Each structure stands twice: as structure tokens, then as C-alpha cells.
């Protein structure tokens, strides 16, 4: 069996690497440049969130910069609104159901694709990723028309199915990435020691592919929770998701409630990620 010690003879390359190191001042400025680029990227990523937070806390009923004060009136309005609260709860319900279905289906599909020796695997993978290529609004419209033809109306399971369709590729992709380097001898060893296929799956395979599955599940949750184009056609009267409710609201009332709702969404997403870390171990995903 190869060990890490067996690699040590190849290490003497290090002095050669040291000989091509850049001179001190260049390295010094390079570090600052690297830092500046990173700060610029972070500002680019966080600026929209900062604007939303300012909008949510500004007491005026319109975006004003600089803000004239700090107020929680829009948060009060958001939490006092039955429509928003219902939409928030419904969005969470749909996102959780979507995450479960996309994770189970996506991980199973990835396992089958990686292990099944199926004919036309590449074509199947491409097909599974195809919902990412199609504009989501067309996916929503197509599903809506399908449901109408089937005369099933716009049920919640139909919305979850739509969300699953657009989130499945994330789970398939991230799970396949982990399976790519999977050492199948570990499963063989478990089975040689008497473990049943089910036990091998739950005690060997699943823990090893967990980082990929979890990464896909997180993507699925966030994509579903924020999903707008697919939901637009599939929500039913009285059961609108938060993004659809926000869209309808801002057509008539573009006030800080939109900002408050966005802040709540961001906090919720953050809470979910922290929750996953505490319950199923996000750190293993981070190591991925």
C-alpha cells in the first residue's frame, strides 16, 4: 500500500522553485495587488446587499442616499403582512421539499451514472444538465401548459416538481464531481467484511460522497428559495412564493418593505447554511 512517505523522494524540487521566486519588492507589491483585487471582488459581491440593507433601514418610502435615519418600520410592515408571512412560509416549505426531492433524485442519478455502465452516459448527463441551458421562464411556461393539459391545476407538488427540475442539475453535477475520484475498493472491502449493500451504502458510500451531495442540496435550497421565473407560472392563487409576492408588490408599492423582505431572505439563507453546518457538517463540504 502506498503511503505518504513514499512520495518524499520527489520533494527535492523545492530549491528549484525557490530559485524562480520573484524579487522582494515585486512580491511585496504583488501581494498588495492580490489583496486589492480580492477587496474589489468582495465589494462587488456585497454592494447590492449593502444597498438593500440601507433601503430597508431608511425610514423614507423611497430609496434615498444618504439615508436620513434608521427605522424598523419596513420590517414591522413586512412581519405584520399576512401575505408576506404566508409567502415566506410557503417559500420555505417549497424549498425544503425541493431540496429533499432534488437531493434524493440527483444523488441517485449521479450514482447510477457513475457506476451503472449505462449506454450513452454522456448524453444522459447532458440531458440532466439541460434545464440549466433553457431559460427558466420557458421551463415554467412549459410545465404550466403540461399541467393544464393534464387538468391538474397548479398544485403545490407541481411547483415542487418545477423547482426540482431546475435544481436537479446542481446535485447531479456536485455528486458526480465527488464520485469521479471515489475509490470503489472501499466499498468492496466493506462487503468482503460482510456488510450488506444497503449497509455499505449508508456507512461507506454516503459518508464519502456527502460533501458533494450536501453542496448540491445547499444549491438546491437557495435556488428554490429564490426561484422566480419558474414560480411565476406555477404558483396558484393564494399560494404565492416570496419572490412572486415581492414582484407583485413592487408593481404597486415600491417601498422599503421590499428591502426588509430581502434582508430577511438573506438572513434566512445564512441561517440555513449555519444550520446545515451544525447538523450535517458543512465543514466537510468546505474541505471539498
Amino acid at each position: 500500500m502506498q503511503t505518504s512517505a513514499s512520495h518524499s523522494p520527489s520533494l527535492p524540487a523545492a530549491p528549484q522553485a525557490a530559485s524562480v521566486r520573484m524579487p522582494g519588492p515585486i512580491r511585496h507589491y504583488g501581494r498588495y495587488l492580490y489583496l486589492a483585487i480580492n477587496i474589489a471582488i468582495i465589494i462587488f459581491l456585497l454592494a447590492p446587499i449593502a444597498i438593500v440593507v440601507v433601503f430597508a433601514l431608511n425610514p423614507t418610502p423611497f430609496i434615498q442616499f444618504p439615508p436620513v435615519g434608521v427605522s424598523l418600520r419596513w420590517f414591522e410592515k413586512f412581519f405584520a403582512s399576512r401575505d408576506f408571512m404566508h409567502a415566506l412560509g410557503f417559500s420555505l416549505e417549497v424549498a425544503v421539499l425541493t431540496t429533499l426531492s432534488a437531493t434524493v433524485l440527483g444523488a441517485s442519478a449521479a450514482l447510477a451514472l457513475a457506476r451503472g455502465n449505462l449506454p450513452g452516459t454522456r448524453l444522459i448527463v447532458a440531458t440532466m444538465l439541460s434545464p440549466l441551458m433553457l431559460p427558466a421562464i420557458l421551463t415554467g411556461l412549459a410545465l404550466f401548459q403540461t399541467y393544464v393539459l393534464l387538468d391538474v391545476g397548479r398544485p403545490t407538488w407541481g411547483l415542487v416538481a418545477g423547482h426540482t427540475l431546475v435544481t436537479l442539475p446542481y446535485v447531479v453535477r456536485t455528486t458526480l464531481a465527488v464520485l469521479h475520484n471515489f475509490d470503489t475498493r472501499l466499498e468492496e472491502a466493506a462487503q468482503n467484511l460482510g456488510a450488506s449493500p444497503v449497509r455499505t451504502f449508508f456507512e461507506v458510500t454516503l459518508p464519502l460522497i456527502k460533501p458533494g451531495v450536501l453542496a448540491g442540496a445547499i444549491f438546491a435550497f437557495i435556488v428554490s428559495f429564490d426561484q422566480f421565473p419558474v414560480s411565476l407560472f406555477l404558483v396558484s392563487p393564494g399560494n404565492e412564493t416570496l419572490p412572486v409576492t415581492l414582484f407583485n408588490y413592487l408593481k404597486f408599492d415600491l417601498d422599503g418593505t421590499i428591502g426588509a423582505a430581502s434582508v430577511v431572505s438573506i438572513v434566512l439563507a445564512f441561517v440555513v447554511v449555519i444550520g446545515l453546518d451544525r447538523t450535517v457538517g458543512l465543514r466537510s463540504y468546505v474541505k471539498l
Partner: protein
Amino acid sequence: MMKALGSLSRRRFLTASASLGIGTIAAPYVARADDPTLRITGWGGKWGEIMKAEIGPAFESEFKCKLQTDSAFPYLPKLQASSRSAPIYDVLHTNSNEQWAAAEMGLVEPKIDPKLVPNLADVYPYAISDKIVGVSIFTSAIGLGMRTDKGYGNVTSWKELWDAKYNGVRGGYVIPVNSLGQAFLMMCGTLFGKGQTDLDAAYTALEKLKPIKIVDFTGAMEKMLLSGEVGLCVIHDSGIYRYDGQNQPTDFVSPSEGVLSLEQVLTITPGSKMKELANAYVNYMLRPEVQKRLAETVWYSPANKKVKLDAKYDAKLLTTPEKVSKLIQVDWKWYNERKDEIDQRVNRIFRA
């Protein structure tokens, strides 16, 4: 024994879970199975609030039915995608331009039978004119919104929007997606050409409006006016009057050339299985007491001539034949037939 119990328990658990799941999904349908359901569309915002809190429940109670309101845009593609014989809506509530498009596609009935909707006899002529599909239950007046704290002086004409002093603080709409913008384009033809259909004159006028701040939604224009980002803009009266009592430095200008009408139109779908209820709903929405309650909540001018609004609303809304005569209706049928061509042209104008 333990294994058997475990197996039984698991089976029971799965059965119970499945039953619970199916029950949860089916519960709303089972609970409502006895009541006829009227499927309509409707706005969000204040309109949606009062419909949900008062007007809708009162209708349900009186007609022993359920009102299912879809307030998630877009309505027309959903109606198009559903079967003609089993449309997704029984009553379509939207603005006149979309109603005309729906009528052209045969998705809604072009007229409402006055025998089935007796309150039609009491509406102003504009509400059932040849420019209207179905019936207009309310209208807003599209005119100019202005800041009163910038020393602009009295604004009386549409043409003042072209005054150079408003460069940088002039507001308009993305014409392809906004009814107010589309109606305003037709007004430009009237102001500077031979009439609404004089598109060349309208395009030239639009060119001269630049620089102009354009937005998609009227809600966004309201906020831009409130924040002072625009000083004079095209807007509907309800977008200004809804801030009544909040001491905002804004006012609505009803230009001397007339105001454009932004109608709230109801139509019935030909394939509706709830025709009787649909007609009852249209009639209900035209009742004076319903009209008064909605008009005083959302600042829309009622279509029913018999409505008596409180003095504050009566002073500002179009509640007399004289005031209503200032309304200019747009020929949406004509417009929709040329919409693609118009969209391309105005996109070029404002992109440049």
C-alpha cells in the same frame, strides 16, 4: 416477534405518512368541493388588500361561492396556455390594452350582456364604448405629476413636458411594457400631429423628450417623484392622490388637452363554466356601494354614474359627466396591431 412488530410499525408509519401527505395536498380541494369557485385575476397592493378583506368575502357570502384570485402576473400568457374550453380564469381583470389583445385571440368575450349585468345601464358611456372590450369598472386619469417645491410654476399643458427646464428631471416609461407609456405615445401623436395614429409625429416628439428618466412600473415613477429624482412626469392620478394626507410636495396636473384613460376592465372568458356567477361578479363590482368603497381606497374614478363619493374624493376624481368628458380613450386595437413595429422604433429612440 420484534422483527414483525418493527415491520408492522414501519408499514404503518409509511401508510400514515402517505395518507397525511395526500390529505395535506388534497385538503383544500376536498374542503372546497361543495362550493362553486369563480376564478378571477386582480391587482396586488391596496386593491388586493381590500378585495381580500372586504369585497371578496362579501361576494362569497352573498353568492355562496369561492372567489379564487390570481394576482401573479402575467395573466395573458397563462390564459393563452390554458384550454379555450376550460380556461384558467372565468373573469379577466386587467387594463384595456391587454383586454384587446385577449379579445383578438378569442380568449375573452368582446361584450358583456346588459340583460345579465343590469348595472351596465348606469355606467358612463366611456365604460362600454367601442374602445372597450367588456366593461371598464374604474378608470384612472393619466396626466402629469409634478413636484410643487421646485418653483416650476403652474403646469397646464402636456407640451410643458418638453420644456428644457425639465431636462434631467423628466420622467416617462419603457413604452413596450407599460400601458401609460403606450397611451402617452398616442397622446404625442395628438399633440404634435394629426391625431393618435400619427406615429411619425409621436416618434419625433419622443426624440425631443430626451434626456428623460424611464421606468418599467408606475410604482417606481411614484417613488422617483417622491424622492425628487424627477420633477415632472407622466403618471396616473391615483399614483399621486394615494399619498393624500402625507404632506408630500407632489401634485397631479390635469392638462388642458385632456387626460388619457387607464381603464380597469372586466371580461368574461367564453369557455367559463361559471358564466352566471361571472356575470354576477361583474354586476357586483359595478354596484354603487362596492364602487364607492374601492374608489375611496385606491383613488380610482368609478364607472357607475350613481356613485356618490365623499367630498374629498369627489373633488379630485372623475365623478361628473363634465369631468368624464375630458377623458381621452386610446384605440388599443389599432395600437396592438402595430405594437411590434412601435416597440422596435421606440427602443431605438431611447437606446440612442
